[in-house]
């Protein structure tokens, strides 16, 4: 059976061009870029090329403001922890209730260590209340860390505006954004629209580079202590011999991403085609993030009265790979903190499915999902104690979020 891969917010296929670019550095170009001899110079030049390629994707920032890391989780840990360690006297952090765990858990850990953290709520469509954000800023606010695009729902936060407001409030406030899901899907100009962003995390494996490589952009002059020490690499900002093959891969992937930015509209059209079809055919279906600006590739659905893991299992029987925010897929017993923060009705909370597309997704693949998905939902509703299969509606006795109403958008 052919794999239909619609889980690109989890990870992406490595682009063939990227594999080709990194291969020499797993073969004869093995030299340590810090070594003195001629052979090493080619390797260190490759690092600088990669840095330059990534800088171009971010709007042509000066490349030395980019430091390569092992991925966005390290970048986030470093950015948030490094800012706090640089100015231990300022203790207030502003973030949101829907951040990726690599930010959310770091902020919770800092709260345990005595920082004062404000977790901003979101509304039913996943958007921030801008007034609440303004009111959260304080004289002792050290750091704002707010993601650009939500990994689960694709909902976008107006980060350029939020960063400007932070800096106009107090230029000493440091603004960090986790841009992992936004990179390559939206134009991101750190010298223009996003000039007020001080720190930005990204990951290679969401843009068709391998897992295990990422970067942190740190605007020159941002007070930031290193996370990993013990070497002069990356200008002393991140010790350890550079992961040359994967850094080269990230550079090549960034160049490809820049080339393909104009093509994201095609991804959006496929996503919209999927969304329109399932909304039309499946009753009691929520589109999480509906009404908010969203990434072009992400569709997060919640099916009332069924559970997400059993949906995924059946989809997988058709070769379709997707993911879910249900408790049963997370390894914990709690459904997604993002969907909870959005107040998704409890009857739909466990029935979420996320489809995330890439530039490799084809119309035929989307059409296959349109064919299969409604039947998967129907089969699980037949088995659900809350659903009346004959009427194709919830049983009158089924629990409902009040006020009771069908929620088909």
């Amino acid at each position: 059976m052919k794999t239909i891969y619609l889980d690109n917010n989890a990870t992406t296929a490595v682009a063939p061009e990227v594999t080709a670019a990194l291969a020499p550095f797993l073969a004869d170009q093995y030299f340590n870029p810090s070594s003195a001899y001629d052979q090493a110079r080619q390797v260190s030049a490759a690092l600088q090329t990669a840095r330059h390629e990534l800088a171009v994707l971010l709007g042509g920032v000066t490349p030395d403001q980019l430091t390569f890391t092992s991925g966005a989780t390290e970048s986030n840990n470093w950015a948030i922890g490094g800012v706090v360690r640089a100015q231990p006297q300022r203790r207030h952090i502003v973030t949101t209730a829907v951040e990726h765990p690599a930010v959310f858990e770091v902020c919770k850990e800092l709260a345990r260590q005595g920082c004062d953290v404000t977790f901003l709520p979101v509304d039913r469509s996943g958007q921030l209340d801008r007034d609440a954000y303004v009111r959260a800023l304080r004289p002792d606010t050290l750091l704002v860390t707010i993601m650009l695009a939500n990994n689960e729902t694709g909902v976008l936060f107006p980060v350029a505006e939020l960063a400007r407001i932070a800096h106009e409030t107090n230029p000493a406030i440091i603004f960090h954004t986790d841009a992992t899901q936004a990179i390559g899907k939206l134009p991101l100009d750190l010298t223009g629209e996003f000039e007020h962003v001080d720190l930005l995390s990204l990951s290679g494996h969401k843009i068709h580079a391998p897992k295990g490589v990422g970067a942190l952009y740190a605007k020159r002059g941002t007070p930031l202590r290193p996370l990993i020490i013990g070497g002069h690499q990356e200008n002393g900002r991140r010790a350890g011999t550079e992961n040359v093959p994967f850094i080269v891969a990230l550079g090549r992937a960034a160049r490809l991403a820049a080339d393909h930015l104009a093509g994201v509209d095609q991804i959006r059209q496929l996503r919209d085609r999927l969304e329109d079809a399932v909304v039309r055919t499946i009753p009691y279906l929520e589109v999480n993030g509906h009404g908010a600006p969203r990434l072009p590739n992400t569709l997060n659905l919640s099916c009332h009265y069924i559970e997400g893991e059993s949906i995924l299992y059946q989809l997988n029987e058709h070769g379709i790979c997707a993911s879910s925010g249900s408790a049963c897929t997370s390894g914990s017993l709690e459904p997604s903190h993002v969907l909870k923060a959005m107040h998704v009705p409890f009857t739909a909370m466990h029935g979420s499915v996320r489809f995330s597309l890439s530039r490799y997704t084809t119309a035929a693949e989307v059409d296959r999902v349109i064919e299969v998905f409604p039947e998967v939902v129907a089969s699980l509703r037949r088995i659900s104690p809350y659903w009346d299969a004959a009427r194709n509606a919830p049983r009158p006795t089924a629990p409902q979020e009040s006020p009771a109403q069908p929620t088909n958008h």
Partner: protein
Amino acid sequence: MAWEYSEKTRQIFMDAVHGKPGTHMGEIEKPDGFGEHGSIVCGDALRFTFRVRQHATDPLQDVITEARYLTFGCTSAIAASEALCTIIEHGQYTPIQALKVTNQDIVRFLEGLPAQKIHCSVMGAEALESAVFNWAQKRGVDLALAGVQLQTKGEDEGRIVCKCFSVTEPYIRRKIKELNLRTIPDITNAIKAGGACASCHHAPGGLQDLLDEAWGRQPAAGGPPPPVVPRTETPAGASSFQRFKQIEQVIAQSVRPALQHDGGDIEVVDIKDNLVYCRLSGACAGCMGAQATLKMMVERTLKEEVSEQLRVIAV
């Protein structure tokens, strides 16, 4: 976390959702026994019904002939429900004999379940038990006289230890012993208690205390860090009341009328010290010059009429 289900579990699940002949999805009308366990809030729920061949004189000799289920839940919850019905029908049990079917029997039938899915099998055993109680009530059988220990009586009213999944203290105490649960993860895997916010793990009277009472205190292991409950309210910044009134007044008397003249409006979102956060609405909002309008006109007016130090921030 990739799926770690046995082939048997996978097969039973797929047969069940496709309604293969011989599977047990459904609900018996006017059943002789009706039981439920779980809820939609907790992420899985099972409705279990059975029919008996009634004995003419002695209800204790009723034999279960048919069992059906409806399940809201994951792959293993559905497979466990199907397994339960198969075991019960196959065994030709009286309802009281059926009570001897445990969650371990379901796990064995499924050829194993991942540790974090054990609660799916427990759900099956619990629904079976409540269906047998329902049968006893309908048939006028005194279970105590029939030698059944009514352990669950009153458990629903006990102190709730795990608030996330509404699990009571008497129930946890019984399950610790019955299922030989030795650690907090054991409890969570079996009956979900403690699986969400974790605040009941080490609280007084919490899961660890109940384990210690059941098995004796264990040498202290470095427990998990205390949970942090995210705070979502936002503290209002301290604003000088007098200054605030003054700014409001100037905006009401000078700024707003000028903007309204052009079909727009202004809203003050917040004032912190010398910073005035404003939102333009109406005709001005989409206007390219909105930012400049605010900066120049509003800020100048406020500087002149209130304080030279005021700055305006567009929100």
